[in-house]
């Protein structure tokens, strides 16, 4: 193993790792927004809301994320959607993880006992008021773990955007391999950076989970 080489290139990997973090955070934000909206639509008793949400989830969970990225980045221009690789990556990863987020959020909402919403509605609260005051605060606790699992899957899945030439960790590894012919060192180095990012994310999730645990 060429340690001197690793030291020499690690600065570039650190920069690439930052791109991985950026694209993951932005995709996560998009995924959470879409996921929340779709989950609320899915638990609604109105078909105009729940049907589109169901279609969204089954399409984005039922096809490979790589194909979704290809459709957005390579296919987009054909339908007037001209995006930079980074933007296409955020959009593709965000919409993909959003479908998984939808199911996790919906699961947490329906896991809150039915009696809770009945009690709120009996007091005269409307559907959205009951959601905001009673259901979501309880569901939030239940969704931290599953959303954390999705977020970590998202960070690892972000390697896919190397295929649409976003210069992140995986792409950077490939680039340095073509100039150094040292795949073992380059992939190990990128793996180390992924591990670092994911450890930090796991720690954050555990902290949040403890912070919002039910006080008794």
């Amino acid at each position, binding site marked *: 193993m060429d340690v001197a080489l690793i030291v020499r290139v690690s600065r570039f990997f650190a920069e690439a790792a930052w791109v991985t973090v950026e694209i993951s955070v932005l995709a996560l934000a998009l995924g959470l927004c879409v996921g929340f909206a779709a989950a609320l639509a899915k638990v609604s008793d109105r078909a105009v809301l729940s049907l589109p949400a169901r279609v969204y989830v089954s399409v984005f969970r039922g096809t490979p994320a790589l194909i979704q990225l290809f459709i957005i980045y390579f296919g987009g221009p054909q339908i007037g959607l001209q995006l930079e690789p980074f933007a296409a990556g955020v959009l593709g990863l965000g919409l993909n993880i959003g479908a998984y987020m939808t199911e996790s959020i919906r699961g947490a909402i329906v896991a809150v006992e039915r009696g809770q919403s*009945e009690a709120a509605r009996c007091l005269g609260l409307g559907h959205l008021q009951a959601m905001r005051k009673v259901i979501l605060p309880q569901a939030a606790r239940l969704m931290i773990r599953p959303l954390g699992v999705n977020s970590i899957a998202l960070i690892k899945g972000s390697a896919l955007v190397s295929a649409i030439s976003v210069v992140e960790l995986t792409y950077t590894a490939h680039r340095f391999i073509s100039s150094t012919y040292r795949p073992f060192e380059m992939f190990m180095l990128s793996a180390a950076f992924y591990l670092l990012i994911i450890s930090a994310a796991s720690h954050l999730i555990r902290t949040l989970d403890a912070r919002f645990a039910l006080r008794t």
Partner: protein
Amino acid sequence: MIQVADLHKAFGAVEVLKGIDLTVERGQILAIIGPSGSGKSTLLRTINHLESVDRGEIWFDGMLVNQPLRGRRFERHVNRIRQHIGMVFQHFNLFPHMTALENITMAPMLLKKTPRREARELAESLLRKVGLLDRIDYYPAQLSGGQKQRVAIARALAMEPKVMLFDEVTSSLDPELVGEVNKVMKQLAQEHMTMLIVTHELRFAADVADHVLFMADGVVVEEGPPAQLFRAPAQERTKTFLQEVFK
């Protein structure tokens, strides 16, 4: 105050209410008794539209509860009516992420725009009434079953309802905790609160109600003042039920 006429309700193919009529006057206390599966809880839950109905009319304070409105307009209509109907459940359904105080003040502050300080005073007086003022900052998980149920009653009273619905509120309590909840209900009765009480506790029903309705298989088999219904039931079905219970 409440009038129900020819009420029908089916869950799928099973008809659980087969034409119910009942009237509750202001200040009256109606106990609804009957075997499990007789439809008594369902009947109670139709009054504030926790259950929809298939046929018939429910009137509350001069308003038709099951108006043929659609979507948003129906929701607004029902929400308005529900503010005047307090309900207490078998399983308390307190909000676990809120203290006793917050459980009580949430609805008045949100729906009636009661200022925080005023809402707190209201909560304090209600908790004093149910004997739990010293538990004002406790979370539901820190309370016993009987205490939870008394907070739930205070929560319902905070909206200053015209009617209170009690759905087997002591059924999931340990026997030694039933008394404290019954005491609060009796106190409400003395204050002439209009109450509909679904219960398995016939002695309590006899004690507190001024009218008793015996239901079985989705129909009202017999009704009358407690003394008459418990001591001299007219129907065979009522006799069998009472014998079973008091055996």
